[in-house]
């Protein structure tokens, strides 16, 4: 529905433009790039989520049908014998024996009152030869916490794998999303932003921009950021306002390497919460909803 609404507004706006007179000088229009690195691993679960999933899993296991051993293991085979040996069987009810938790109700070697634990027979430990070539090697999971996390290396793309990282640069002594002036009116804003990124951050970078249309706007008057109410009041002259149009894009491969004499002193890859102290409250509140919580 939202998409449809966007399309309709686009059409309406596009139709409305038919040779208007431009009041804003071109040097006052700039393109800002919100460059993000999408998460590499699934989001971290909250404590509540973890506990809830555990509860659900336990319920499901309790209500599961008995494992049909006779279907998976042919009778009299070695595999069947090993499997049978590995299982823990419940104690059957016996006349004259008192069971404190009630009489067992055993069908197919499972006490139907409780969950069934299926134990797979242990295999012999594998030889450590030919790490990668050995196709039957045990599966080793990589850590979700990387070296960059341990060192808190904020310039690394390998930090906080479960979160979306945003590129922040120090331009003209101020931390912000990389911003580039529009020089030619024939070049769309997204290309201005992406070409600018390659100029300051090197050519070896692969990005994918979501849309040509800006995702947001920031207005400055005399180098000072205007908040939403101020920017709409008629007291501020339009020709003196500098406009930053925010373009969204994703980095897919490559690395941002600051080039010499291009105005970028430092850069950082940060998650949403880390942006606020660097961007300042006024700036952050205007872009906060454009950034992902995950």
């Amino acid at each position, binding site marked *: 529905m939202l998409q449809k609404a966007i399309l309709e507004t686009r059409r309406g*706006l596009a139709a409305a433009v038919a040779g208007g007179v431009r009041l804003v000088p071109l040097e006052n229009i700039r393109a800002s790039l919100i460059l993000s690195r999408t998460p590499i*691993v699934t989001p971290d679960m909250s404590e509540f989520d973890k506990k809830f999933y555990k509860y659900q899993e336990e319920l499901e296991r*309790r209500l599961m049908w008995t494992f049909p051993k006779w279907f998976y293991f042919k009778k009299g085979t070695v595999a069947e014998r090993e499997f049978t040996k590995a299982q823990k069987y419940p104690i059957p009810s016996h006349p004259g024996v008192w069971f404190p938790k009630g009489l067992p109700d055993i069908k197919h070697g499972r006490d139907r009152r409780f969950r069934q634990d299926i134990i797979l027979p242990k295999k012999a430990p594998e030889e450590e030869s030919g790490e990668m070539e050995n196709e039957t090697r045990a599966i080793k999971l990589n850590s979700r916490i*990387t070296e960059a996390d341990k060192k808190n290396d904020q310039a690394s793309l390998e930090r906080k794998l479960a979160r979306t990282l945003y590129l922040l640069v120090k331009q003209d002594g101020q931390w912000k999303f990389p911003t580039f002036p529009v020089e030619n*009116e024939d070049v769309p804003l997204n290309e201005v932003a992406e070409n600018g990124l390659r100029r300051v951050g090197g050519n070896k970078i692969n990005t*994918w921009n979501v849309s040509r249309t800006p995702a947001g706007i920031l207005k400055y008057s005399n180098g000072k950021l205007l908040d939403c109410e101020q920017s709409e009041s008629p007291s501020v002259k339009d020709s003196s306002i500098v*406009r930053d149009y925010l373009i969204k894009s*994703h980095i897919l491969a490559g690395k941002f390497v600051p080039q010499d004499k291009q105005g970028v002193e430092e850069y950082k890859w940060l998650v949403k919460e880390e942006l606020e102290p660097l961007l300042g409250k006024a700036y952050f509140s205007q872009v906060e909803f454009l950034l992902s919580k995950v």
Partner: protein
Amino acid sequence: MLFGIKNLRGVIPRSNSVCRIQQCRLKRSKAGLSPEAQKVVSQLSVLSAGRKMPRLIKLCNEDYVKHRTIMKAWSLERKNKIEQQKITLKKQYESMKKASEDLKFASPKLFTIANEHEYGKRFPLEIRIPTDYPPRQLWYYNYVPRQKK
């Protein structure tokens, strides 16, 4: 006539030796079923509840209240999350709209270019879908841009 004779032959008891061989063949399975039938029975037994069903959970009143509390908490959390997402989406939409309106005012030409349809634009294949655990190579650094002809 001929058919009648053939059918009759089937009914007539055969010699003792033939009967014995047939009995031996049938004796293999315990339940008196042929191996094919036995296979079907064991396959069906996997699908049917039969004796494999666990007992129903009987919760005492206190446990039932606990269960209901847990489920309620979960649904509330989900509801809040969805509401938050809706609010964020609305804000993003408003922001886009505002920016577009402003661009139309500031530079109609840039606005027209921005709203042109991009034919053949596809979602990139290089983008990674999140997995539970990271890959061995975390990031591909040696990217070389394609040469434009």
